[in-house]
C-alpha cells in the first residue's frame, strides 16, 4: 500500500477501508463511540457516504449510522488511492 493520509471520516470515499487514528470529540461522544467499537486502531469501512446526510459504516462486524458531525470527529488513516483499493464492495 502506498503512503497513507489522515482525514476526517466524513471525507472518506464510499466503499473505502480505513483505520481509526483518533477521536476529537468531548468525553461523552468519545465514550459512546468507544462503546460502539470506534477506538484508535479499529478498522472501519465506509458503506455509504453521499456527501450529505448520515454515513453508514461497518466497524467490528457492526453497521453504524453516524451523523456527519460525529463522523467529522473521527480521524482515520485512509490509503492514498481509494478509487480501487482492492475492494470488491462498490459505492452504493
Amino acid at each position, binding site marked *: 500500500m502506498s503512503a497513507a493520509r489522515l482525514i476526517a471520516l466524513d471525507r472518506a470515499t464510499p466503499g473505502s477501508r480505513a483505520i481509526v487514528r483518533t477521536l476529537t470529540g468531548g*468525553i461523552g461522544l468519545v465514550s459512546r463511540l468507544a*462503546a460502539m467499537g470506534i477506538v484508535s486502531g479499529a478498522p472501519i469501512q465506509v458503506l455509504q457516504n453521499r456527501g450529505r446526510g448520515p454515513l453508514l459504516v461497518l466497524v467490528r462486524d457492526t453497521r453504524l449510522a453516524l451523523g456527519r458531525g460525529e463522523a467529522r470527529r473521527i480521524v482515520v488513516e485512509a490509503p492514498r488511492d481509494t478509487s480501487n483499493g482492492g475492494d470488491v464492495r462498490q459505492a452504493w
Partner: protein
Amino acid sequence: MAATSGRRGRRRSGEWLVALAGQPNVGKSTIFNLLTGLSQHVGNWPGKTVERREGLFAQNGIRLRIVDLPGTYALTAHSVQERIARDFIIHERPDVVVVVADAASLERNLYLVAELVTLRVPLVLALNMMDVAHAHDVQVEPRVLEAALGVPVVPLVATRNEGIAELVAAATRVAREPAGFRPPLPEVAGPHGAVLARLRALVGQHAPPPYDGDWVSVKLLEGDPDVIEKAKTWLDDASWQPVHALLAQHDDALLDIAAGRYDWIGRMVRAAIRRPRLGQVSLTDRIDRVAAHPLWGLLLLLGAFAIVFWITFLVASPVQQWLDTAVVARVRRWPSAAFPLWPPWVVGLISDGLLGGGGIVLTFLPVLIVFFTALGLFEDTGYLVRTGFVMDGCMHLIGLHGKSFLPLCLGFGCNVPAVLATRVIEAPSGRMLTILLAPLVPCSGRLTVLAFVAPAFFGEWALLVSCGLVAMNLLALALLGTVLSRTMFRERHMAFILELPLYHVPNPRTIAAFVWRNVVAFLRNASSVILLVSVVVWAGVTFPGPDVGSSYLARAGQWLAPVGALMGFDWRLLVALVSSFVAKENAIATLGVLYAERGAEVGLAAALAERISPASAVAFLTVMMLFVPCVATVAAMHQETRSWRWPLLSAAVLLVLALGGGTLVYQAGRWLGTGS
C-alpha cells in the same frame, strides 16, 4: 452491609438473584421471556421512566429471580440506562450477571463484558444468535472463548429455544460457587497504565463498600462525572487535590482505556472466532442497498406505512364495526330485558355506563393488534432502526434528526410511550422539540375514533378521508417543527449514532409476546379511565332529569355553544370532545352514552350518521385529531421535562390549531353545501 444480609437472606430461601445484562439488539428480551414466561412484573426503575422488568424462573427446585437490566453498550454515567444497570449491579450485588451477547458481532458485544469483569461480579456469557453468526460465516468456539475468559460461555439460539436449560445450569453453578471463576482483567494501554496505578494508590482504600477501589480508579481516569462527584465526598480536600491534578493532566485517558479493553477483547477472541473472507457482501448489506438508500428507502418506508394503514382499515375497521353492532349493542340490551323490575337508573348505569364503556374497550382491540403487530414485525426483523437512518434527512428539514423518528413512530400506538422514548435523544433541545411535537402524531386512540366514525359518514371514501386527516396531522407536525426549530430551538447539535443490526427472519413468538404485552398494558391503563369517564358521562346526562336536554352535561355544553357553532358542533359533540381530554378514545364512549337510545337500536355508528351532518363530522374529526394531548400524555410530558411549561405550551398550540382547523373545515364544508 445491607446488601450482604439481603444476599444471605436470598440464599436461605434458596432463591438466586440474576441480573440479565446485554447490549441492545442481542435478543435479551427473548431470553427473558423464555425464562420468566407469565411470571413477569413490569414497572419502572425507582424515580426513572425506564421500564423495569422482573420475573421468576422456578423449575426442579431451582428458583431464579431475574431482573432485566436496560440494554446498554457500556456502563458509563452518560446515559440513564447505563447508570441504572451499573447501580443495580453495584448496590444489589446479584448472585450472577448473565450477559447476553450477539455471536455475530462478538467483539463489540464483549466491550460490556470488559466493563463487567472490572466490577468483579460473577458472570455467565450467553452467546446468542449462534444461527445468525453461522449464516454470516462467523464461526465462534464457545469452549475456547470460555477458557480464555475464565467465565462460563453458553451458546444459544433463543428464538428456537435452544440452550436455555444449559444457561440456567451455568447461572446456578456460578451463583453457588462465585469464587470458581477469575477472568483476566483488561489493562490500560500506553502510558496511562502508570497513571492508573498512581490513582489506585491515591483513591483505592477510600472507596467505601460496595464500591471497588480498582473500579473507582478506572472510572475516575475515564472522566466519569458520577464517580468523580462521589469520590469528592469520600476524600477530604487535601487528598482530593492530587487526584484532581492527575485527572486534569490526563483528561484524554479514556481513549487508552477503551483501547485497552479492545486489546483485552482481541486476546479473548483470538483463538475462538473465525470470520468470513474479506469482500463478501452479506445479505444485510444487499437489503440495505434498497432499505437504507436515501430515495428507495424512503419509498419503501412510505409503502410499509401505507400497507399498515390499509390493513387497519381493511381488517381492523370492519371487525371493530362488527364488535360494536353485533356484540356490544346486543350485550347492552341485555340488562333491561333480564331485569325488568330493577329501577331504570340502575339498568341505565349498567347498560349505558359500565357495559357501554367496556364495549368501547373491546372495540379497540382490532386497531391495537394490527398496529403492534406491524411495529413488532418491523422491530424484530431489524427494519425499524433503518427508518431512523432513512428519515434522518427529512427529519432535519423539520429541525429534528433520525433518532426522533422512532419515538414519533411509537406515537401512532400511543403518545405516552412516544414521549418516554424521546430519552434516546441525547441533546435536551432536540428532545424537548420531539416531546412538543409528539402529540401531533395520531395515536391509536384517535385512529380508533377515526376508524369508527369515518366509515359511518363517508362509506367508501372513508379510507381517503382518514388518510387525509392523518396527513393533515403529519403536515401540522412538519410545519410546527420547522417553525419552532428556527425560532425557539436554534443553535444545537445532536449526536447521531445508531446501530443497524443484521436483518433476520422475524420470530412469531417474540412478536406475539410484544403484541400481548403492549395491548395488555394499554388496556390496563386505558380501561379504568374509560369506564370511569363512561359512568361520569352517563351520570351527567341522566341527572337531574327528566330528559337528556336538561341534564348537567347539556347545560355545560350549551354554555360552550358559541364556540361549537363555529365548527358546527352541537352540545353533544362538544362534550364528547372535552371528554377526549381524559383519553382520546373516550370520545366514542361519550357519544355512545349521549346517543344511547338510538345506539342500542341500530349501533352507534349508524345513530351518529343519522344525527350529524357530514361537514360537522369532518370538522369533529379534524378537531379530534389535533386536539390537546390526553391526560396521560400531559402527565408524561410533565414528568419528562420536569416542568409545566412544555405540556402547557403544547396544549395551547394544539388547542389553537384544533379549533382553527375545525372552524376552517366546517365553514368550507358548509360553503360546499354539506352543512345540513
